[in-house]
Protein backbone atom coordinates (compact mmCIF):
# COMPACT_ATOMS: atom_id res chain seq x y z
CA UNK A 1 0.00 0.00 0.00
CA UNK A 2 2.73 2.31 0.91
CA UNK A 3 4.39 1.79 -2.46
CA UNK A 4 1.20 2.48 -4.33
CA UNK A 5 0.55 5.77 -2.58
CA UNK A 6 4.11 6.89 -3.26
CA UNK A 7 3.61 6.05 -6.93
CA UNK A 8 0.41 8.10 -7.03
CA UNK A 9 2.08 11.00 -5.37
CA UNK A 10 4.96 10.87 -7.81
CA UNK A 11 2.72 10.78 -10.85
CA UNK A 12 0.70 13.66 -9.47
CA UNK A 13 3.86 15.66 -8.92
CA UNK A 14 5.12 14.93 -12.43
CA UNK A 15 1.86 16.22 -13.87
CA UNK A 16 2.00 19.18 -11.55
CA UNK A 17 5.46 19.85 -12.95
CA UNK A 18 4.08 19.93 -16.47
CA UNK A 19 1.10 22.01 -15.40
CA UNK A 20 3.29 24.69 -13.80
CA UNK A 21 4.85 25.48 -17.15
CA UNK A 22 1.67 24.94 -19.12
CA UNK A 23 0.77 27.08 -22.12
CA UNK A 24 -2.05 28.71 -20.16
CA UNK A 25 0.39 30.91 -18.29
CA UNK A 26 2.82 31.35 -21.17
CA UNK A 27 1.68 34.80 -22.34
CA UNK A 28 1.82 36.20 -18.82
CA UNK A 29 5.28 34.76 -18.36
CA UNK A 30 6.44 36.47 -21.54
CA UNK A 31 5.33 39.84 -20.22
CA UNK A 32 6.91 39.17 -16.83
CA UNK A 33 10.25 38.91 -18.53
CA UNK A 34 10.12 42.59 -19.49
CA UNK A 35 9.01 43.79 -16.08
CA UNK A 36 12.27 43.00 -14.38
CA UNK A 37 13.67 46.30 -13.15
CA UNK A 38 16.50 47.98 -15.00
CA UNK A 39 19.03 50.34 -13.42
CA UNK A 40 18.74 54.14 -13.17
CA UNK A 41 18.54 55.89 -16.55
CA UNK A 42 20.37 59.11 -17.41
CA UNK A 43 17.98 62.00 -18.02
CA UNK A 44 19.14 63.81 -21.15
CA UNK A 45 18.38 67.09 -22.93
CA UNK A 46 17.28 69.32 -20.05
CA UNK A 47 17.93 72.27 -22.39
CA UNK A 48 18.24 72.50 -26.15
CA UNK A 49 21.50 74.44 -26.37
CA UNK A 50 24.69 74.97 -24.41
CA UNK A 51 23.34 78.25 -23.09
CA UNK A 52 19.98 78.99 -21.53
CA UNK A 53 20.26 82.53 -22.93
CA UNK A 54 23.47 84.14 -21.70
CA UNK A 55 24.40 81.65 -19.03
CA UNK A 56 25.53 78.06 -19.39
CA UNK A 57 22.97 75.28 -19.40
CA UNK A 58 24.01 71.77 -18.30
CA UNK A 59 24.31 70.72 -21.95
CA UNK A 60 27.72 70.08 -23.49
CA UNK A 61 28.79 69.16 -27.00
CA UNK A 62 28.74 65.41 -27.54
CA UNK A 63 32.01 63.59 -28.07
CA UNK A 64 33.60 64.72 -31.30
CA UNK A 65 31.03 67.46 -31.84
CA UNK A 66 32.05 70.97 -32.79
CA UNK A 67 29.45 73.56 -31.94
CA UNK A 68 29.81 76.89 -33.72
CA UNK A 69 27.90 79.65 -31.97
CA UNK A 70 27.37 83.00 -33.60
CA UNK A 71 25.71 85.46 -31.27
CA UNK A 72 24.54 89.00 -31.94
CA UNK A 73 23.46 91.57 -29.43
CA UNK A 74 22.02 94.77 -30.85
CA UNK A 75 21.89 98.25 -29.36
CA UNK A 76 19.34 99.58 -26.89
CA UNK A 77 15.75 99.32 -28.03
CA UNK A 78 15.20 102.68 -26.25
CA UNK A 79 17.56 104.35 -28.78
CA UNK A 80 14.48 104.61 -30.98
CA UNK A 81 13.85 104.91 -34.70
CA UNK A 82 17.09 106.79 -35.45
CA UNK A 83 19.12 103.67 -34.58
CA UNK A 84 16.36 101.36 -35.85
CA UNK A 85 15.66 100.41 -32.22
CA UNK A 86 19.21 99.25 -31.73
CA UNK A 87 19.59 97.18 -34.89
CA UNK A 88 22.14 99.62 -36.36
CA UNK A 89 24.53 98.79 -33.62
CA UNK A 90 25.47 95.16 -33.17
CA UNK A 91 28.02 93.42 -30.98
CA UNK A 92 28.92 89.88 -31.84
CA UNK A 93 30.48 86.83 -30.29
CA UNK A 94 31.85 83.90 -32.22
CA UNK A 95 32.51 80.74 -30.27
CA UNK A 96 33.66 77.19 -30.92
CA UNK A 97 32.93 74.45 -28.42
CA UNK A 98 34.31 70.95 -28.82
CA UNK A 99 33.28 67.80 -26.96
CA UNK A 100 36.26 65.77 -25.72
CA UNK A 101 33.79 63.31 -24.21
CA UNK A 102 30.01 63.35 -24.00
CA UNK A 103 30.38 65.29 -20.72
CA UNK A 104 33.56 67.36 -21.08
CA UNK A 105 33.77 70.30 -23.44
CA UNK A 106 36.42 72.92 -24.16
CA UNK A 107 35.89 76.13 -26.06
CA UNK A 108 37.30 79.38 -27.37
CA UNK A 109 35.44 82.55 -28.28
CA UNK A 110 35.94 86.13 -29.33
CA UNK A 111 33.54 88.96 -28.53
CA UNK A 112 33.67 92.32 -30.23
CA UNK A 113 32.50 93.76 -26.89
CA UNK A 114 35.74 94.77 -25.16
CA UNK A 115 37.63 92.83 -27.87
CA UNK A 116 37.43 89.97 -25.43
CA UNK A 117 39.00 86.59 -26.03
CA UNK A 118 37.94 83.65 -23.90
CA UNK A 119 38.94 80.08 -23.28
CA UNK A 120 36.59 77.89 -21.31
CA UNK A 121 35.93 74.40 -20.08
CA UNK A 122 32.71 72.74 -19.03
CA UNK A 123 32.27 69.40 -17.33
CA UNK A 124 28.99 67.73 -16.41
CA UNK A 125 30.38 65.69 -13.57
CA UNK A 126 27.09 64.31 -12.28
CA UNK A 127 24.15 63.20 -14.41
CA UNK A 128 20.52 63.41 -13.40
CA UNK A 129 19.10 59.89 -13.33
CA UNK A 130 15.58 58.57 -13.11
CA UNK A 131 14.76 55.48 -11.09
CA UNK A 132 16.86 56.01 -8.00
CA UNK A 133 19.76 58.11 -9.29
CA UNK A 134 20.75 61.71 -8.64
CA UNK A 135 17.76 64.09 -8.82
CA UNK A 136 19.90 66.83 -10.39
CA UNK A 137 22.82 67.15 -12.77
CA UNK A 138 25.89 69.13 -11.70
CA UNK A 139 27.97 70.94 -14.27
CA UNK A 140 31.07 72.99 -13.61
CA UNK A 141 32.05 75.84 -15.93
CA UNK A 142 35.18 77.94 -15.85
CA UNK A 143 36.12 80.66 -18.26
CA UNK A 144 39.20 82.86 -18.57
CA UNK A 145 38.57 86.18 -20.34
CA UNK A 146 41.15 88.55 -21.74
CA UNK A 147 40.13 92.14 -22.39
CA UNK A 148 41.72 93.30 -25.64
CA UNK A 149 41.10 97.07 -25.52
CA UNK A 150 44.14 99.36 -25.73
CA UNK A 151 45.17 100.65 -22.34
CA UNK A 152 44.27 104.31 -21.85
CA UNK A 153 47.28 106.64 -21.87
CA UNK A 154 46.75 107.89 -18.35
CA UNK A 155 50.17 107.15 -16.93
CA UNK A 156 49.01 104.18 -14.87
CA UNK A 157 51.35 101.26 -15.42
CA UNK A 158 49.12 98.34 -16.36
CA UNK A 159 50.35 94.84 -17.05
CA UNK A 160 49.09 92.14 -19.36
CA UNK A 161 47.84 90.18 -16.36
CA UNK A 162 45.45 93.04 -15.59
CA UNK A 163 43.49 92.23 -18.70
CA UNK A 164 42.47 88.86 -17.31
CA UNK A 165 39.30 87.95 -15.47
CA UNK A 166 37.77 84.63 -14.49
CA UNK A 167 34.34 83.20 -13.82
CA UNK A 168 33.67 79.90 -12.09
CA UNK A 169 30.21 78.51 -11.73
CA UNK A 170 28.19 75.40 -11.01
CA UNK A 171 24.98 74.64 -12.85
CA UNK A 172 22.60 72.62 -10.69
CA UNK A 173 19.89 71.49 -13.10
CA UNK A 174 16.84 69.31 -13.01
CA UNK A 175 14.55 68.27 -15.83
CA UNK A 176 11.25 68.06 -13.96
CA UNK A 177 9.25 66.90 -16.96
CA UNK A 178 9.86 66.56 -20.71
CA UNK A 179 8.75 70.19 -20.96
CA UNK A 180 10.09 71.93 -17.87
CA UNK A 181 13.68 72.25 -16.70
CA UNK A 182 15.12 74.49 -14.01
CA UNK A 183 18.71 75.41 -13.20
CA UNK A 184 20.32 77.19 -10.24
CA UNK A 185 23.65 78.76 -11.05
CA UNK A 186 25.89 80.27 -8.38
CA UNK A 187 28.82 82.11 -9.95
CA UNK A 188 32.01 83.77 -8.79
CA UNK A 189 33.55 86.53 -10.90
CA UNK A 190 37.14 87.59 -10.30
CA UNK A 191 38.68 90.57 -12.08
CA UNK A 192 42.41 91.10 -11.79
CA UNK A 193 41.86 94.81 -12.27
CA UNK A 194 38.71 96.90 -11.98
CA UNK A 195 38.30 100.25 -13.66
CA UNK A 196 36.88 102.13 -10.68
CA UNK A 197 37.82 102.12 -7.00
CA UNK A 198 34.16 101.54 -6.15
CA UNK A 199 34.17 98.14 -7.80
CA UNK A 200 35.06 94.92 -6.07
CA UNK A 201 37.49 92.51 -7.67
CA UNK A 202 35.32 89.59 -6.62
CA UNK A 203 31.61 89.49 -7.29
CA UNK A 204 29.28 86.65 -6.47
CA UNK A 205 25.95 86.07 -8.17
CA UNK A 206 23.15 83.63 -7.63
CA UNK A 207 21.30 82.83 -10.82
CA UNK A 208 18.33 80.81 -11.93
CA UNK A 209 17.20 79.79 -15.38
CA UNK A 210 14.39 77.75 -16.86
CA UNK A 211 13.06 76.42 -20.11
CA UNK A 212 9.51 75.48 -20.92
CA UNK A 213 8.86 73.58 -24.14
CA UNK A 214 5.84 74.76 -26.10
CA UNK A 215 6.34 71.92 -28.56
CA UNK A 216 9.22 69.73 -29.67
CA UNK A 217 10.92 72.55 -31.55
CA UNK A 218 10.04 75.65 -29.58
CA UNK A 219 10.71 76.61 -26.00
CA UNK A 220 10.48 79.71 -23.81
CA UNK A 221 13.58 80.38 -21.73
CA UNK A 222 14.42 82.82 -18.97
CA UNK A 223 17.25 83.60 -16.61
CA UNK A 224 18.00 85.97 -13.76
CA UNK A 225 21.21 86.69 -11.89
CA UNK A 226 21.12 88.31 -8.49
CA UNK A 227 24.24 90.25 -7.48
CA UNK A 228 25.21 89.14 -3.99
CA UNK A 229 26.18 91.89 -1.53
CA UNK A 230 29.81 92.92 -2.04
CA UNK A 231 32.41 94.01 0.52
CA UNK A 232 32.66 97.42 -1.20
CA UNK A 233 29.44 99.48 -1.23
CA UNK A 234 27.35 98.91 -4.31
CA UNK A 235 28.09 100.60 -7.55
CA UNK A 236 24.73 102.29 -8.20
CA UNK A 237 25.10 101.70 -11.93
CA UNK A 238 25.00 97.94 -11.69
CA UNK A 239 21.88 95.87 -12.18
CA UNK A 240 20.86 92.28 -11.92
CA UNK A 241 20.74 90.58 -15.31
CA UNK A 242 17.32 89.49 -16.55
CA UNK A 243 16.74 87.84 -19.91
CA UNK A 244 13.81 86.24 -21.68
CA UNK A 245 13.99 84.29 -24.88
CA UNK A 246 12.76 81.69 -27.34
CA UNK A 247 14.64 78.63 -28.58
CA UNK A 248 13.73 77.51 -32.08
CA UNK A 249 15.17 74.26 -33.31
CA UNK A 250 15.42 73.44 -37.00
CA UNK A 251 17.28 70.20 -37.65
CA UNK A 252 20.98 71.04 -37.32
CA UNK A 253 20.51 74.56 -35.90
CA UNK A 254 19.18 76.01 -32.70
CA UNK A 255 18.17 79.66 -32.98
CA UNK A 256 17.86 81.53 -29.73
CA UNK A 257 16.12 84.89 -29.77
CA UNK A 258 16.07 87.02 -26.67
CA UNK A 259 15.65 90.32 -24.93
CA UNK A 260 18.01 91.17 -22.11
CA UNK A 261 19.35 94.10 -20.13
CA UNK A 262 22.92 92.78 -20.54
CA UNK A 263 25.07 93.96 -23.40
CA UNK A 264 28.03 91.62 -23.18
CA UNK A 265 27.80 87.96 -24.07
CA UNK A 266 30.57 86.60 -21.89
CA UNK A 267 30.18 85.77 -18.21
CA UNK A 268 32.09 88.63 -16.55
CA UNK A 269 30.12 91.18 -18.49
CA UNK A 270 26.57 89.95 -18.05
CA UNK A 271 27.00 88.71 -14.49
CA UNK A 272 28.91 91.61 -12.95
CA UNK A 273 28.72 94.56 -15.35
CA UNK A 274 25.09 94.75 -16.43
CA UNK A 275 23.94 98.37 -16.42
CA UNK A 276 20.62 98.36 -18.30
CA UNK A 277 17.30 98.81 -16.53
CA UNK A 278 14.26 96.95 -17.84
CA UNK A 279 11.88 99.66 -16.63
CA UNK A 280 13.80 102.33 -18.61
CA UNK A 281 13.70 100.31 -21.82
CA UNK A 282 17.46 99.65 -21.62
CA UNK A 283 16.90 96.39 -23.39
CA UNK A 284 18.91 94.69 -26.04
CA UNK A 285 17.55 92.35 -28.65
CA UNK A 286 19.86 89.52 -29.57
CA UNK A 287 20.15 86.05 -30.99
CA UNK A 288 22.42 83.03 -30.85
CA UNK A 289 22.76 80.58 -33.70
CA UNK A 290 24.10 77.18 -32.69
CA UNK A 291 25.33 75.02 -35.54
CA UNK A 292 26.66 71.55 -34.75
CA UNK A 293 29.23 69.65 -36.83
CA UNK A 294 30.34 66.13 -36.06
CA UNK A 295 34.08 66.34 -36.69
CA UNK A 296 35.40 63.47 -34.57
CA UNK A 297 34.29 59.94 -33.90
CA UNK A 298 31.83 59.20 -31.11
CA UNK A 299 33.61 56.03 -30.12
Amino acid at each position, binding site marked *: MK*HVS*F*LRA*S*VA*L*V*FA*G*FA*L*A*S*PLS*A*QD*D*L*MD*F*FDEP*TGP*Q*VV*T*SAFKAGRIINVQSPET*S*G*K*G*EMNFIIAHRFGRISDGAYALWGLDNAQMRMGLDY*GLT*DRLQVGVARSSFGKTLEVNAKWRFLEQKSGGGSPVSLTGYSVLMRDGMRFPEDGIGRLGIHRISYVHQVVVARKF*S*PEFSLALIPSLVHRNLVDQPARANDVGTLGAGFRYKLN*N*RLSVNGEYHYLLPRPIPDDPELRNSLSLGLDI*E*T*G*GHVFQLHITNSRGMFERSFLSETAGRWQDGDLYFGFNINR*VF*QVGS*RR
Partner: protein
Amino acid sequence: MRHLFFLALLVAGFDLTGGAQQFATREAHISFLSETPVEDIKAESQEASAILDVATGGLAFQVPILSFHFPKALMEEHFNENYMESAKFPKASFRGTVMGWDPDGDAQQEVVAKGKLDMHGVSVAREVTGTMTRTTSGWMIGATFSVPCTDHDIDIPKVVSENIAEVIDVTLTATLLPR
Protein backbone atom coordinates in the same frame (compact mmCIF):
# COMPACT_ATOMS: atom_id res chain seq x y z
CA MET B 1 14.04 0.40 -7.49
CA ARG B 2 10.57 1.60 -8.27
CA HIS B 3 11.10 4.54 -5.95
CA LEU B 4 14.20 5.54 -7.84
CA PHE B 5 12.50 5.18 -11.20
CA PHE B 6 9.66 7.47 -10.24
CA LEU B 7 12.00 9.92 -8.60
CA ALA B 8 13.98 10.05 -11.85
CA LEU B 9 10.77 10.58 -13.80
CA LEU B 10 9.75 13.30 -11.38
CA VAL B 11 13.02 15.16 -11.84
CA ALA B 12 12.90 14.67 -15.60
CA GLY B 13 9.34 15.95 -15.66
CA PHE B 14 10.31 19.24 -14.01
CA ASP B 15 13.41 19.61 -16.09
CA LEU B 16 11.65 19.11 -19.41
CA THR B 17 8.90 21.54 -18.70
CA GLY B 18 10.61 24.19 -16.65
CA GLY B 19 13.93 24.19 -18.49
CA ALA B 20 13.35 24.24 -22.18
CA GLN B 21 10.03 25.82 -23.02
CA GLN B 22 11.02 29.44 -22.90
CA PHE B 23 14.01 30.99 -24.58
CA ALA B 24 15.06 34.54 -23.98
CA THR B 25 17.80 37.17 -24.23
CA ARG B 26 18.45 40.69 -22.97
CA GLU B 27 21.12 41.35 -25.59
CA ALA B 28 19.21 41.24 -28.85
CA HIS B 29 20.48 43.51 -31.58
CA ILE B 30 18.19 45.94 -33.38
CA SER B 31 19.33 48.44 -35.97
CA PHE B 32 17.50 50.73 -38.31
CA LEU B 33 18.29 52.72 -41.38
CA SER B 34 16.76 55.85 -42.80
CA GLU B 35 17.86 56.18 -46.39
CA THR B 36 17.51 59.38 -48.40
CA PRO B 37 19.52 60.88 -51.26
CA VAL B 38 20.82 63.49 -48.79
CA GLU B 39 22.02 61.23 -45.99
CA ASP B 40 21.77 57.76 -44.51
CA ILE B 41 21.05 57.65 -40.80
CA LYS B 42 21.79 54.43 -38.97
CA ALA B 43 21.30 53.58 -35.32
CA GLU B 44 21.86 50.47 -33.26
CA SER B 45 20.78 49.01 -29.96
CA GLN B 46 22.33 45.99 -28.26
CA GLU B 47 19.90 46.18 -25.37
CA ALA B 48 16.72 44.74 -26.79
CA SER B 49 15.02 41.89 -24.95
CA ALA B 50 13.33 38.97 -26.62
CA ILE B 51 11.42 35.94 -25.37
CA LEU B 52 9.99 32.94 -27.16
CA ASP B 53 7.62 30.34 -25.77
CA VAL B 54 8.07 27.15 -27.77
CA ALA B 55 4.83 25.58 -26.57
CA THR B 56 2.58 28.43 -27.66
CA GLY B 57 4.71 30.10 -30.31
CA GLY B 58 4.42 33.29 -28.28
CA LEU B 59 7.12 35.76 -29.24
CA ALA B 60 7.83 39.20 -27.78
CA PHE B 61 10.49 41.83 -28.31
CA GLN B 62 11.08 45.00 -26.37
CA VAL B 63 13.71 47.72 -26.75
CA PRO B 64 14.37 50.90 -24.72
CA ILE B 65 14.33 53.85 -27.12
CA LEU B 66 17.22 55.47 -25.24
CA SER B 67 19.41 52.46 -26.00
CA PHE B 68 19.66 53.35 -29.70
CA HIS B 69 22.99 54.94 -30.48
CA PHE B 70 23.82 57.07 -33.49
CA PRO B 71 27.12 58.14 -35.06
CA LYS B 72 26.27 61.76 -34.16
CA ALA B 73 25.19 62.89 -30.70
CA LEU B 74 22.81 65.45 -32.19
CA MET B 75 20.96 62.76 -34.15
CA GLU B 76 20.47 60.85 -30.93
CA GLU B 77 19.12 63.93 -29.18
CA HIS B 78 16.68 64.69 -31.99
CA PHE B 79 15.61 61.04 -32.18
CA ASN B 80 14.73 60.98 -28.47
CA GLU B 81 13.46 64.53 -28.07
CA ASN B 82 11.66 65.29 -31.32
CA TYR B 83 10.65 62.07 -33.01
CA MET B 84 10.30 59.17 -30.57
CA GLU B 85 9.64 61.35 -27.50
CA SER B 86 11.34 58.72 -25.39
CA ALA B 87 10.46 60.36 -22.08
CA LYS B 88 6.78 59.76 -22.83
CA PHE B 89 7.20 56.52 -24.75
CA PRO B 90 10.35 54.91 -23.36
CA LYS B 91 9.98 51.52 -25.07
CA ALA B 92 9.01 49.96 -28.37
CA SER B 93 7.72 46.41 -28.40
CA PHE B 94 6.36 43.62 -30.53
CA ARG B 95 4.07 41.00 -29.03
CA GLY B 96 2.74 38.22 -31.14
CA THR B 97 2.71 34.60 -32.18
CA VAL B 98 4.89 32.70 -34.60
CA MET B 99 2.74 31.06 -37.25
CA GLY B 100 3.35 27.84 -39.16
CA TRP B 101 6.66 26.71 -37.77
CA ASP B 102 8.12 23.46 -36.57
CA PRO B 103 9.45 23.78 -33.02
CA ASP B 104 11.45 20.59 -33.55
CA GLY B 105 12.89 21.49 -36.95
CA ASP B 106 16.64 21.69 -37.23
CA ALA B 107 17.04 23.72 -40.40
CA GLN B 108 16.51 27.46 -40.75
CA GLN B 109 12.81 28.16 -41.14
CA GLU B 110 11.00 31.01 -42.81
CA VAL B 111 8.32 32.08 -40.38
CA VAL B 112 5.69 34.76 -39.99
CA ALA B 113 5.08 36.44 -36.66
CA LYS B 114 1.64 37.94 -36.30
CA GLY B 115 1.09 40.48 -33.59
CA LYS B 116 1.23 44.10 -32.55
CA LEU B 117 4.04 46.54 -33.00
CA ASP B 118 3.80 49.21 -30.30
CA MET B 119 5.90 52.30 -30.82
CA HIS B 120 5.54 55.98 -29.95
CA GLY B 121 2.27 55.19 -28.18
CA VAL B 122 0.64 53.72 -31.30
CA SER B 123 -0.04 50.00 -31.62
CA VAL B 124 -0.23 48.60 -35.14
CA ALA B 125 -1.18 45.04 -36.16
CA ARG B 126 1.68 43.59 -38.17
CA GLU B 127 2.78 40.38 -39.85
CA VAL B 128 6.55 40.22 -39.90
CA THR B 129 8.47 37.68 -41.95
CA GLY B 130 11.67 36.36 -40.47
CA THR B 131 13.83 33.33 -39.93
CA MET B 132 14.23 31.00 -36.98
CA THR B 133 17.06 28.54 -36.53
CA ARG B 134 17.40 25.90 -33.84
CA THR B 135 20.87 25.94 -32.32
CA THR B 136 22.37 23.42 -29.90
CA SER B 137 21.32 25.51 -26.92
CA GLY B 138 18.49 27.73 -28.15
CA TRP B 139 17.07 29.69 -31.07
CA MET B 140 18.38 32.29 -33.44
CA ILE B 141 15.83 34.76 -34.74
CA GLY B 142 16.33 37.25 -37.52
CA ALA B 143 13.96 39.65 -39.28
CA THR B 144 13.94 42.68 -41.51
CA PHE B 145 10.88 44.84 -41.83
CA SER B 146 9.77 48.36 -42.66
CA VAL B 147 8.11 50.87 -40.39
CA PRO B 148 6.34 53.84 -41.98
CA CYS B 149 6.74 56.82 -39.62
CA THR B 150 3.16 57.91 -40.21
CA ASP B 151 1.85 54.56 -38.89
CA HIS B 152 3.10 55.54 -35.45
CA ASP B 153 2.32 59.27 -35.54
CA ILE B 154 5.98 60.17 -35.82
CA ASP B 155 5.93 63.63 -37.29
CA ILE B 156 8.73 64.64 -39.66
CA PRO B 157 8.56 68.35 -40.40
CA LYS B 158 9.05 69.63 -43.92
CA VAL B 159 12.34 71.32 -43.15
CA VAL B 160 14.04 67.96 -42.49
CA SER B 161 11.93 65.83 -44.86
CA GLU B 162 14.87 65.56 -47.29
CA ASN B 163 17.09 64.13 -44.56
CA ILE B 164 14.77 61.58 -42.97
CA ALA B 165 13.06 58.75 -44.82
CA GLU B 166 9.31 58.25 -44.51
CA VAL B 167 9.79 54.52 -44.18
CA ILE B 168 12.47 53.16 -41.86
CA ASP B 169 14.11 49.76 -42.43
CA VAL B 170 14.53 47.77 -39.23
CA THR B 171 16.78 44.73 -38.81
CA LEU B 172 16.84 42.54 -35.74
CA THR B 173 18.87 39.54 -34.70
CA ALA B 174 18.57 37.67 -31.44
CA THR B 175 20.20 34.60 -29.97
CA LEU B 176 17.80 33.12 -27.44
CA LEU B 177 18.90 30.77 -24.71
CA PRO B 178 16.83 28.72 -22.25
CA ARG B 179 15.31 31.06 -19.72
